[in-house]
């Protein structure tokens, strides 16, 4: 049944439904409803919630729980996610699954608490040190937050890879009608006895860490990770096309901004201007192919990347378009949110 859910609380309930029983976090606006909800909800379902003494501590608790084979999760907002980067790199280095939520706020530094998308580079290009990637999802509605969170734990387990779900303060704080999928039967979750440090290894030592001093051993591990990423790119890349079939002006935007673009597409079409939208749902792997295919179409005049940043994803759009068509950028910062009318004006003035 559809109910009215706040974005943050919907993510928390969807995680519980997906079988997440361990949450470790540290408070920061605008994502506090996630740990707040988990603090009582996990207790109800026999899980564990810990408010750690810091973000560094929380992500390392996730590392430990994931190593023991649990479905574990943490959430934070931009400055807190920066603090977690070392741990995320270690989790990737130890080849472990987990789910991390970043409800982005404006930066750099402590910045502000209003919505922003300035963590695109951090989320998709590493964030921590070393050659690794998180699988990054960017939902745009409360229902999509639910569906993606529910699936994120399966994706993380399947590829033994950290999954990051990024939203912004707007999506975390808003309420929308959404339906939570049924509670997963924990006995049907993937069995991790073959690798997890869970006491089921017949007394043999099982070491989970990210240290590999031998150059060849580490290079082989690097190769293994990137083979894994190729498979992920092939199977998990997701995007939505919105009025893109005959579009001459193609917006590219993700998350809440993509919704503002949809409203702009409708307004422009009412005025006879053929606008469309490509909305990446996965930011890593990036849906470069659909953007490149669109760029090859004769009718397409230009791309307009729209972000709540000074321009980060626009670099991936330019790589995908590869010079075939002009790529323009419209951005707002500091917690300011563009309105559909701003985008309509931008397209009309630049025509």
């Amino acid at each position, binding site marked *: 049944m*559809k109910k009215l859910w706040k974005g943050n609380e919907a993510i928390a309930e969807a995680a519980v439904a997906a079988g997440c029983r361990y949450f470790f976090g540290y408070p920061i606006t605008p994502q506090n409803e996630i740990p707040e909800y988990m603090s009582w909800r996990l207790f109800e379902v026999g899980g564990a919630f810990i408010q750690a003494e810091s973000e560094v501590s929380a992500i390392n608790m996730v590392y430990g729980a994931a190593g023991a084979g649990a479905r574990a999760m943490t959430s934070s907002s931009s400055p807190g996610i920066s603090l977690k980067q070392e741990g995320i790199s270690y989790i990737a280095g130890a080849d472990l699954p987990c789910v991390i939520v970043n409800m982005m706020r404006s930066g750099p530094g402590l910045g502000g608490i209003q919505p922003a998308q300035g963590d695109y580079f951090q989320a998709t290009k590493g964030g921590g040190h070393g050659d690794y990637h998180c699988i990054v999802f960017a939902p745009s509605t409360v229902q999509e937050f639910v569906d993606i969170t529910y699936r994120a734990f399966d994706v993380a387990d399947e590829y033994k890879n950290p999954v990051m779900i990024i939203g912004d303060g707007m999506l975390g704080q808003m309420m929308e*009608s959404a339906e939570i999928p049924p509670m997963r039967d924990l006995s049907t979750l993937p069995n991790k006895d073959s690798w997890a440090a869970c006491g089921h290894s017949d007394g043999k030592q099982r070491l989970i860490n990210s240290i590999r001093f031998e150059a060849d051993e580490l290079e082989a591990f690097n190769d293994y990770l990137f083979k894994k990423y190729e498979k992920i790119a092939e199977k998990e890349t997701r995007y939505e096309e919105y009025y893109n079939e005959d579009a001459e002006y193609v917006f590219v935007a993700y998350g809440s901004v993509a919704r503002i673009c949809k409203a702009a597409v409708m307004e422009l079409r009412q005025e006879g201007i053929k606008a469309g939208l490509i909305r990446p749902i996965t930011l890593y792997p990036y849906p470069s192919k659909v953007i490149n295919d669109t760029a090859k179409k004769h009718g397409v005049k230009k791309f307009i990347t729209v972000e709540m940043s000074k321009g980060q994803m626009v670099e991936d759009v330019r790589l995908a378009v590869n010079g075939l068509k002009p790529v323009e950028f419209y951005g707002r910062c500091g917690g300011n949110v563009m309105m559909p009318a701003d985008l309509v004006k931008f397209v009309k003035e630049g025509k």
Partner: protein
Amino acid sequence: MKIIISGFGGQGVLSLGKFISYSAIEENLNTSWLPSYGPEMRGGTANCSVIYSAEEIAAPVIDKPDVLIAFNEPSLAKFENSVVPGGVIIINSDIVHTKTTRKDVKFYEIPVDTLASAINKRGANVYMLGALLPIFKDITVEAATKAIEHVFESKPKVIPANIECLKAGCEYMTKLVK
């Protein structure tokens, strides 16, 4: 339907928005409720953007509201020019004494604090919800009643007085709209 509700923190501005969204769900409509959050809430104005529609809701932000409900003077000044031509502006006339400068909108002055306090001292925003129903047309009193019952589930004692407020608000506005 795109609605902006604005006033001081503590006037029930955000709750009124939630009441509308809960009522819309009872009518099987899609709905979004977006609060202002952050520094502007402390001691200043609070506002929320509420949308309901049978269609998919694109932008949750509103640049051209169909309806503006202003619970204080700064809210009227801030948002009155953004209302669509032919739209509706409602003020809480117990607090707002300025009239709109717009000639192309419907303008209603409702002393909700006075009217509601005769029934329920804390019911001004529920009274306003009732007053909105004749304007919305597609949300019934029954749906709004169910929403009120749901919202106050944990405080069943206050439900009857709030439903009375809701109905009184609806009747008051029905006469004005005619």
